[in-house]
């Protein structure tokens, strides 16, 4: 069986302007949404707060739960259905931290029982203090930064044999970030600056492949975060795990194309034009790129639909990331390498 014909020849490079326009629109939408919403819609992992998951044996109106909670002073608590309606499961979310020390579960059980007539089962309690939230946020940003950096070292080492150059560069960036973070700079600003410097250095040092890869990765991560922001989905620790996996995985497709580009350039006659070579490489690997994504998407959809509510957003982030990642390895990464080649 064959989904993509072996003699396929689509002019990807020629259409790169359309692709760039689409990417820029998506990125602008993402940044716009992030600005309007004042950053990602952080879950309690990153800003602190309390969530309590409760389950009833039968149907209970949400209003009644809210009444019970406001009776014990949880006026700011939001109550949402969790999972399928017939599960009678709810998620209570509050920024109130004061009560978690002393008998929180008990007082919630009592209050909700008083207002609904049914004792709920407390299935999960998560409380994160504001300081812990801040720590986790910084850790998450650092994790994204480090994985981007390490991956690009690997790429420039493997594809351009510039291990030392990229290693020294990454080393000095890491040291700079480390020392500046001691001086209480905002981690977000610090890492944005570090990434901008990284991009500039790649350009100056002519690390073409690393640059193509990191641009594609930033593109994928930014748009995934943007879509989460647009849909107002919770940005929690598992989403960071998903983003890191996307960073690692979306590169698979990019590497397949890069590998072929390198192979074709080596065997090329000097008369062959670069854009043609690049386009040929993308087309030759197209079925691979699409198929690997398809198999991964199949399991992710299984996870999304059957994996339960807790893992839902994680699966969603992965699906978005894989789709965007596949798109970017065809339409973003290689054209950037081509541009860098033409310098």
């Amino acid at each position, binding site marked *: 069986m064959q989904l993509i014909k072996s003699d396929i020849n689509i002019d990807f490079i020629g259409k790169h302007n359309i692709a760039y326009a689409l990417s820029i629109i998506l990125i602008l939408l993402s940044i716009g949404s992030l600005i309007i919403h004042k950053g990602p819609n952080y879950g309690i992992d990153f800003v602190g707060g309390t969530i309590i998951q409760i389950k009833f044996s039968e149907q209970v109106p949400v209003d009644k739960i809210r009444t019970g909670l406001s009776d014990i002073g949880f006026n700011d608590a939001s109550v949402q259905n969790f999972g399928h309606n017939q599960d009678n499961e709810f998620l209570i979310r509050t920024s109130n931290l004061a009560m*978690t020390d002393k008998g929180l579960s008990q007082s919630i059980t009592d209050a909700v029982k008083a207002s609904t007539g049914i004792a709920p089962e407390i299935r999960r309690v998560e409380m994160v203090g504001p300081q812990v939230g801040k720590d986790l946020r910084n850790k*998450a940003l650092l994790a994204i930064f480090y994985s981007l950096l390490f991956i690009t070292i690997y790429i420039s080492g493997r594809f351009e044999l510039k291990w030392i150059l990229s290693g020294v560069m990454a080393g000095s960036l890491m040291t700079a970030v480390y020392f500046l973070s001691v001086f209480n700079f905002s981690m977000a600003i610090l890492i944005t600056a570090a990434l901008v410097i990284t991009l500039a250095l790649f350009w100056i040092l002519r690390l073409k492949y690393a640059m193509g890869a990191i641009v594609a990765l930033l593109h994928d991560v930014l748009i995934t975060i943007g879509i989460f922001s647009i849909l107002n989905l919770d940005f929690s620790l598992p989403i960071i795990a998903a983003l890191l*996996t996307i960073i690692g995985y979306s590169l*698979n497709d990019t590497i397949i194309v890069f590998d072929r580009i390198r192979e074709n350039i080596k065997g090329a006659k000097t008369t062959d034009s670069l854009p043609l070579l690049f386009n040929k490489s993308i087309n030759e690997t197209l079925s691979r790129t699409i198929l690997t994504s398809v198999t*991964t998407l199949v*399991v*992710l959809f299984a*996870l999304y639909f059957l994996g*339960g509510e807790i893992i839902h957003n994680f699966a969603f982030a992965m699906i978005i990331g894989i789709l965007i990642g596949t798109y970017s390895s065809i339409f973003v990464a290689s054209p950037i390498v081509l541009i860098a080649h033409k310098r």
Partner: protein
Amino acid sequence: MKPFTFKSVLNIGVILAAIVFLLPTFFNCWPHKKINLGLDLQGGMHLVLEVQNIKAVEAEVERTIQEIKKQLRTEGVKHLGISRLNDNSILAKFADGNDKSGFETVLSKNFGNLVAHKPQIDNNIVSYKLALSEEDTENLKKMATAQALETIRNRIDEFGVSEPDIRIQGKNRILIQLPGIQDPERAKDLIGKTAQLTFQLVDDDADVNAAINGTPPVGDEILYQTKYNPGSGIPVKTAFLINKRILLDGSLLTNARVEFDQFQQPQIGIEFNRKGARVFDHITGENIHKRLAIVLDKTVYSAPVIQDRIAGGKARITGHFTLNEAKDLAIALRAGSLPAPVKIIEERTVGPTLGADSIRTGLISMVIGGFLVILFMIIYYKNAGLIADLALIVNIILIGGGLAAFQATLTLPGIAGIILTIGMAVDANVIIYERIREEIRKGKTALAAVHSGFDRAALTILDANVTTLIAALVLYQFGTGPIKGFAVTLCLGIVASLFTALVLSKSIFNFVLKNKPSKKLSI
């Protein structure tokens, strides 16, 4: 052809090892290492406590002040007030002259560890500012955290939790993981209790109400006792004016146990060691007809009038305890007090039913996802797909064996990692097969196509997997709990799929091609 090549031995060896490690998870057999389930799958509580170790410094400063005062008394030096400032330094005032020089002698003789600033003289009053040295302060803080960890470990051991994980995290945080805990609220109460038991005198010379409205007399503080109205059960708070001087504290306890009074109401009987008994004997003898308050964590439990000297070193803490409260309090007193209060700054508790649900939904999506991928590979690549599917199943066995062998913890995100690996493991086969098809189109024979397919795809597969491995390793380094579980399965999955794609599948292909006369590939 040799019957046992190095590769075939390697293949079989790795698979057998994985199966051996995986078996104990399902049956009770050697090597008895089951796959650990994370708290999110088996239920349990994860706590991060912050030791407010600045309070230990405060306490030490207060203690030092009492020591200085005592020393000055014995030397006959009069002071004009010695108090603790907010920055935990000590302000001591003396009249210029004999008292000043007397103090300086005491200071240099007994309190050489204190850092003294140059004294200020104002209207014949000399003020000294003293402080603990930076090193002492740091040590106190470190000790407080270490001691808190030890105390909490003792309490949890007595409370009875199987396989708790308690460790220091960073400078002043303690991480506690209690798998399968039945009553998280009670455990939390027990762990968080400071359990600082003190015996202090009630100041009956001054008026409590005046002190509440104004300021308490020097050396006194206002503490409360909570009583419950027997009819309505409404709590009533009674204020006491308590002398700050601690006559005796819980550090000299040898035992604490639950007893019952004549109304079968639980109370806690405590026993002091010989030194404690002597102190108790002494203070009761000296303060007959005064009230002695039993204070626990800044709450007065009772304040009986001392009728007579009490020898033997036994006392009772009464209050309106439930049986469990009394039991836990006895545990806390036996295990010792926390050197500083702790605050819960992170809590994640998962009930056992939710954990079971997560395992179920995780397994269902794994089976369905795996089935779909297996089906897809057979339809798309026919017999070659079958080889990929075999590699996939081996892959999952390898991950399971790896989890058990390394005693890693399987979490819900970890299951997601396995599911993801199912999708990614066949990627390697897809890359190889597409390459083989390409080579066949170029007119190569089946065997040659397979060889160059594997050879040429190997590097690409390695590159692609190394980048994911880098991301997974970073995630392992930065992640906590469940997320770490994800990183672990992802790493194992990547390594396993490198093996299954590059070594195992290749061997199977070689085997099939060598035993097949037609030399035509079903791919």
